[in-house]
């Protein structure tokens, strides 16, 4: 099989684009998709400072690599969740990339250790507050990334969510008719109130398989192991189902998610924008001052419960 563009030997076939690419043309394709996402969703410009949320996985390291190669000013934050050997191995991958690729391009890695500030690792915190680990992890990561972006005065925070992540999340929300979450499913969320960083997902046009291939081809060493806490997560089931559909009918994932975005953009011309809705609903948390819909934000509630002694 030969590359659709230059006719040399292909290394990856992309049925959803009726194409196959060699390494060079595939890298060009990936960079073009990210550039298109940034431009079409008005994510950020070349003079703005970006904070990338990195985990040591393929998506976030690929994102950091792509943004730096496209000439953006992108630093990163790693949140060490304290999941034993898994967190240590993840951090090693992030550190290796930061030292060998990012630092020579002038980029900085920030780190946050959950055990240091929150008092224990994510598994123990989840047990203390009687909540699922993935949900506790999500609350802490969203909070710490937003806080770091605001404190270090970054213009925008970028995450490595890809097409599979967004299509799976959309499927879950639609299956349960969680309409209130659909507004937040776009790849570019505004800094609608004071204390909220703008959040963007520049990889939403690329699949997990394409991002894993990008890492293999560019020798980006990432953690292949699944997070031990994520085993059996519902989102993984949705991804499996979508991948079976994609194999039978290439383009299903992009038609599903991009079609949703197209419908959303038409809806946004309605009088109430997401920023207006946020401004009506959000105000500073009584304790930490970050935006919340309640008197006290979910992070401060979580930490208060975690620090309350349990009575048997």
């Amino acid at each position: 099989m030969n590359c659709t563009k230059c006719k040399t030997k292909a290394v990856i076939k992309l049925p959803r684009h009726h194409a196959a690419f060699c390494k060079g043309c595939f890298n060009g394709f990936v960079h073009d998709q990210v550039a298109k996402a940034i431009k079409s969703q008005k994510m950020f410009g070349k003079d703005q400072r970006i904070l990338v949320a990195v985990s040591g996985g393929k998506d976030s390291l690929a994102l950091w690599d792509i943004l730096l190669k496209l000439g953006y000013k992108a630093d990163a934050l790693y949140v060490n969740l304290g999941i034993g050997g898994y967190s240590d191995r993840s951090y090693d991958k992030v550190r290796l990339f930061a030292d060998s690729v990012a630092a020579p391009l002038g980029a900085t890695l920030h780190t946050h250790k959950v055990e240091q500030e929150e008092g224990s690792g994510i598994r123990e915190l989840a047990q203390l507050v009687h909540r699922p680990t993935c949900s506790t992890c999500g609350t802490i990561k969203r909070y710490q990334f937003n806080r770091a972006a605001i404190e270090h005065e970054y213009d925008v925070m970028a995450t490595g969510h890809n097409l599979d992540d967004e299509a799976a999340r959309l499927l879950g929300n639609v299956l349960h008719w969680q309409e209130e979450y659909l507004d937040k499913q776009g790849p570019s969320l505004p800094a609608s109130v004071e204390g909220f960083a703008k959040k963007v997902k520049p990889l939403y046009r690329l699949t997990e398989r394409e991002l894993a291939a990008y890492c293999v081809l560019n020798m980006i060493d990432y953690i292949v192991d699944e997070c031990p806490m994520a085993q059996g997560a519902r989102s993984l089931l949705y991804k499996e189902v979508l991948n079976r559909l994609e194999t039978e009918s290439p383009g299903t994932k992009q038609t599903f998610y991009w079609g949703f975005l197209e419908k959303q953009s038409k809806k946004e011309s309605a009088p109430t924008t997401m920023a207006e809705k946020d401004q009506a609903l959000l105000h500073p948390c009584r304790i930490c001052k970050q935006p919340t819909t309640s008197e006290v934000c979910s992070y401060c509630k979580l930490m208060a419960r975690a620090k309350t002694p349990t009575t048997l």
Partner: protein
Amino acid sequence: MQVQLSHPARTVEIKGPKRAKDVLRELSLVVEAHLVIRGDELVTEDEMLFDKDQIEIRPVISGG
């Protein structure tokens, strides 16, 4: 050929020659959720794999 798999990590023996997509099919693995790597090079599903090849089939799904 020796085929290295993940989740859980294990090695299985598959008789060659076979196309990558047929190796995936024999192992009941979906193309869209895996990469086939020979040595350290990525190969397409149509690539013919032989008994002497060291193959890694890497899952690409992540997240919770």
